[in-house]
Structures are given as C-alpha cells and as structure tokens.
C-alpha cells in the first residue's frame, strides 16, 4: 500500500480543477500549471526510485482487496513512462507560454492540458481494464478539445475526423471488454492474466487479443489503422502537436505491450506473429511517408509511425533483449519526438511556412536552433553516443536471437531512411542561402528554444549514461518477460 502511486494522477487533476476557476488570470494559470508539472516530475522520480528499491508497487483504492476494487499498479515500465510523460509535458508547457497565444490561454487551455496529463498518467498506472478505458476517455476528451481549441477551419475539419475515429475505437474497446468479461469474469488485469493462463488461452481469447490489437492499434497508429493520423496531427498548434506526438500514440503502444505480455502470451505463434507482421508493415509505411513529403510537420508525423512500428516489433519478438530495447526506445522516442516537433515549430514560427521548399539558410542566423536540430536528428536515427542507439541495437539483437531476420533488417534499413528524412529538413531548411522572412522578428526564438534544448540534453544524457540507466530498464523488462511477478505483486499482498 502506497499512496505515492496516485500522486502523478492527482497533482495534475487538482491543478486543472483549480485553474478552471481562474480563466482570465493568465499569469496564475501559467504558474500553477508549471508548479504542478514540476511537482509531478519530483513525485515521478520518487516513484521510480521506490519501485527500484522495493519492487512493484500496488495501491488498492479504498482498501478493497485486489480483484474486487480498482487497483493502481506501478511497475518499473509504467513508472518510467510516467516520469517521461511528466518531463515532456513540462517542456511543452513552457513552450506554450510564448507560442500558444492569449486567445487560447483565455479559453481553458491550461486546465485541458492538465486533464490530458491526468488521462495519460492514469492510463499508465491503472491495473484495471475498464479503468484503462475511462482514462483513455479522459485523455481523448482533452485531446479533442486541445485539437479544436482556436476553431480555425482546418482544426474543425480534422477534429471531426479524429473524433469519429476515436468514438468508433472507444466503442470497440467497450465491446472487447464485454467479451473479455463474459469469458474470464473479472476486470482486474492481474486477475485476468491468472485466469487466462488457467484456461490456457483457447481460440476465443486469441480473437479477443486481435480485437485489442485493433482497438489499441487505432490509438497507436499501426498499419493499417494509421490513416487518421497524418491529417489530424497536421491541424493543432505546435505545443499541442508535440504533446500528442510524444504521448498519445505511446499510450496505445503501452496498452498493446501490457495486454500482449500480461494476458495473451500463450498463443504467441498466432497473435505475436500477427503483431510482428503489422509492426514491420508499419515501419515500411512510415518511412515511405517520411521520405515522400516536403512538409516539415508531415515528415516528423510519419516518423512517429516508424517509431511505433520499431517498438512493437521489439515487443512481438518476446525475448528479454528485445523487451529491454523496446522500453529503451520507447522512452527515447517520447523525448526526441517532442524535441523535434518543438524545433520544427520554431522553424515554422520564423519562416511562416511548413513547406521545406520555402525555407533555407536558417543556420546562419540561428546557429543554436540549427545545431540543436542536428543533434536531435542524429539521436532520432540512432547514432552511437546519443539515445536512439542502444534501443535499436537491442531490438535488432533480440530480432536476430528470435530468428526474425527480415524484421531486424527492416529496422536497420529504416534507420537509414529516417536519417535521410530528417537530414532533408536540415540540408534544405538550415543550409543554403540566407533569406529574409516576413514575421521573423515576432518569433520569440530564445524562449522557445529552452524546451527543445532541455529535451536534447536529456536525450544525450540518456544515451551517454546507458550504464547507469540500464538497471532500471532491465527491471522493467523482467516484469514484462515474467507476468507472474506482476500477478503476485497485485493479488498476494
């Protein structure tokens, strides 16, 4: 029993609730959000340390024993994701201060921002499948509002599509939970896992596993369910886009990982091979999109799809190396995607366009921006001293060990094309002739640059300090590889 687990949900929730009362006091809004965000980071650090020393933590809400009440569970995997979420949301928050604009700030931008964090942190730390659905809805509802806030034409249009897709996937989630409940008769994730292994996963449970893959695949943008994403993510303002790109799809990835390692690991010949094929196709679709476009936002958006594919390939291989690699890569990707979106956002703020053909020569006037982008691009591709390297190495190593040579090869080749796609932005946008841009002076580049610089430094530290971080990551991978650790921690307390 440990109330620390609920704090990453409770702090943003309280912050949001307070902020609703002061919609016009922008400075108060900013300060309270920032303080809440910092407090969440501190709590998340404590949580990671606590899980590291004392093993998996669980909290039965209202002291109802485990299968009967809602249980919050924090193993190392979810604790690390909560920490990453808090850091990413903090940087997006301080970026918002100078870029989101008064109009949006006056209309409940910060409360909704905090509710989004509530949803994401809740989804990472819940131990109950229906509670996961509720936290998904908290997250999605906030994301609808953030997507449409401002009400420009493109936002309205894309919000309708995004909302419709997510309404359908939520209904599918409810249906899937209903099927699962009729078979196992419980909603607690540890208890579901125990009962699934008692009956040894008959065919009907494999069907439910595939349904879960469809539901979470729609949230996490895997092939062939990614179609809504490039359009929808093109619409919102940059800090919202960075938040979406770093967090929302990763919640889908987390849920696939959780269900496929905790519930449905008995018939891996069917479910995990399916996951693996889809992951490989996702990587291929992602890189095709990433190299095809000349729009800087679109390039990074398709890179999200590539990363989702790489992480899920690692999960589908089901050995400890690949798990370690996937967790490593997942955290790296959340940090670096946020950084890239924010950097690209600065370039758009300076040039006033997202078309790569209309921008050039940025590095002469903004060397800080240029070199930060360069490092972030190398980190994304996985160049050794930086953070993307070790994750991909372990995934490829796990792929070879699991005899998925094709998938491992695709992961390696995809790195090359990802590097090409982000270097295309660097070469075309930052090199070349110096230009004068119309609204150049209005962009508060120095302030905006703070957040991506923090993230890129973190990513470099994360890459260089691999040895120090490895014990945490491998602890998380152990829990994924051995579900009995999770079950024992929740049910036998």
């Amino acid at each position, binding site marked *: 029993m440990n109330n620390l687990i609920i704090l990453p949900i409770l702090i943003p929730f309280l912050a949001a609730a307070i902020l609703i009362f002061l919609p016009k006091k922008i400075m108060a809004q900013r300060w309270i959000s920032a303080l809440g965000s910092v407090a969440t980071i501190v709590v998340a650090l404590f949580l990671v340390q606590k899980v590291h020393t004392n093993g998996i933590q669980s909290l039965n809400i209202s002291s109802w024993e485990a299968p009967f009440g809602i249980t919050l569970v924090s193993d190392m995997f979810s604790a690390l994701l909560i920490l990453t979420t808090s850091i990413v949301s903090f940087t997006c928050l301080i970026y918002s201060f100078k870029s989101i604009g008064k109009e949006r700030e006056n209309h409940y931008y910060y409360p909704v921002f905090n509710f989004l964090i509530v949803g994401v942190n809740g989804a990472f730390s819940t131990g109950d499948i229906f509670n996961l659905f509720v936290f998904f809805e908290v997250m999605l509802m906030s994301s609808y509002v953030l997507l449409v806030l401002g009400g420009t*034409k493109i936002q309205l249009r894309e919000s309708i599509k995004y909302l*419709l897709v997510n*309404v359908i996937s939520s209904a599918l989630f409810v249906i899937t939970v209903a099927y699962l409940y009729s078979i196992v008769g419980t909603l607690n994730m540890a208890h579901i896992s125990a009962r699934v292994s008692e009956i040894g996963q008959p065919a009907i449970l494999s069907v439910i596993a595939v349904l879960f893959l469809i539901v979470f695949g729609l949230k996490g943008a895997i092939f062939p369910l990614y179609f809504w994403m490039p359009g929808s993510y093109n619409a919102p303002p940059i800090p919202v886009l960075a938040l979406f790109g770093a967090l929302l799809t990763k919640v889908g990835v987390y849920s696939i990982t959780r269900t496929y390692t905790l519930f449905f690991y008995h018939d891996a010949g069917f479910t995990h091979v399916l996951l693996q094929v889809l992951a490989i196709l996702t990587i291929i679709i992602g890189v095709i999109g990433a190299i095809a476009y000349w729009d800087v936002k679109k390039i990074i958006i398709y890179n999200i799809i590539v990363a989702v594919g790489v992480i899920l390939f690692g999960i589908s291989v089901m050995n400890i190396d690949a798990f370690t690699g996937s967790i490593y890569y997942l955290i790296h990707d959340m940090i670096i995607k946020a950084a890239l979106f924010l950097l690209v956002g600065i370039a758009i703020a300076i040039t006033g366009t997202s078309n790569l053909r209309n921008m050039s020569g940025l590095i002469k006037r903004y060397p800080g921006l240029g070199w930060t982008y360069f490092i972030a691009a190398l980190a994304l591709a996985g160049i050794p001293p930086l953070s993307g390297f070790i994750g991909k190495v372990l995934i490829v190593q796990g792929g070879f060990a699991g005899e998925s040579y094709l998938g491992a090869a695709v992961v390696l080749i995809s790195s090359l094309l990802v590097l090409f796609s982000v270097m295309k932005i660097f070469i075309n946008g930052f090199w070349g002739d110096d230009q004068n841009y119309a609204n150049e002076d209005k962009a508060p580049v120095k302030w905006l640059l703070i957040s991506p610089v923090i993230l890129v430094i973190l990513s470099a530290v994360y890459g260089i300090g691999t040895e120090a971080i490895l014990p945490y990551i491998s602890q998380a991978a152990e829990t994924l590889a051995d579900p009995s650790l999770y079950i024992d921690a929740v049910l036998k307390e």
Partner: protein
Amino acid sequence: MEILMSIVVGVLFMTATYLMLSKSLLRIIVGTGLLSHGAHLLILTMGGLKRGAAPLLGENAESYTDPLPQALILTAIVISFGVTAFFLVLAYRAYKELGTDNIEQMRGTESNE
C-alpha cells in the same frame, strides 16, 4: 434470450456501420449513437441475462443479477453522452464555419489555409 439480444445488437452494429459510411455528418452522428447503444446492450448481454432480483440488498432475494455490468454501462453511457454532445456542437460549428455538412467536401491537407 442471449441469442435474441446478440442478433439485435448485431443489427444495431450493422445499421451504425452503414450510417457512418454515409456522406452527411448528421447521419454519421446518428450512427455513433446507435453504435454506443449496441455496445451498451452487448455489455449487458455478455454479463449474463439470468433471472434474479434487481441488485438492491433490500430485496432479500436468493439471487441477484450481476451488478458489475450495470455499473460499467452507466459509466460508458455518461462518457458517450459527453462525447456525443461535444460532437454535435462541433458539427454545428463546422457547419457554420465550413458551410457544408458533406464529409466529402471536408477534404484537403494544406496546413496554410
């Protein structure tokens, strides 16, 4: 009884899918309403439709119906209610701004509009 309910739910899903594939935005929203009806009825059916008293301890019955699916449905209903209200307002706003309710005309990927 469960078989009958399954068929009804299937018809609801079928109608919802058909409506959501149409062009008018309002028909799509009606489709999402039917989809959530189907999902809620499915939870009720999947929880079992055996006879028993309403889940009130004052009934002093020998057996009760399963209270858990009812709680789940109640949660799902308010969530889909909130989302539907938001969706309807969004559709209204989009109709005023974009001047159309035809989803075919809401195309385009240009970010600089």
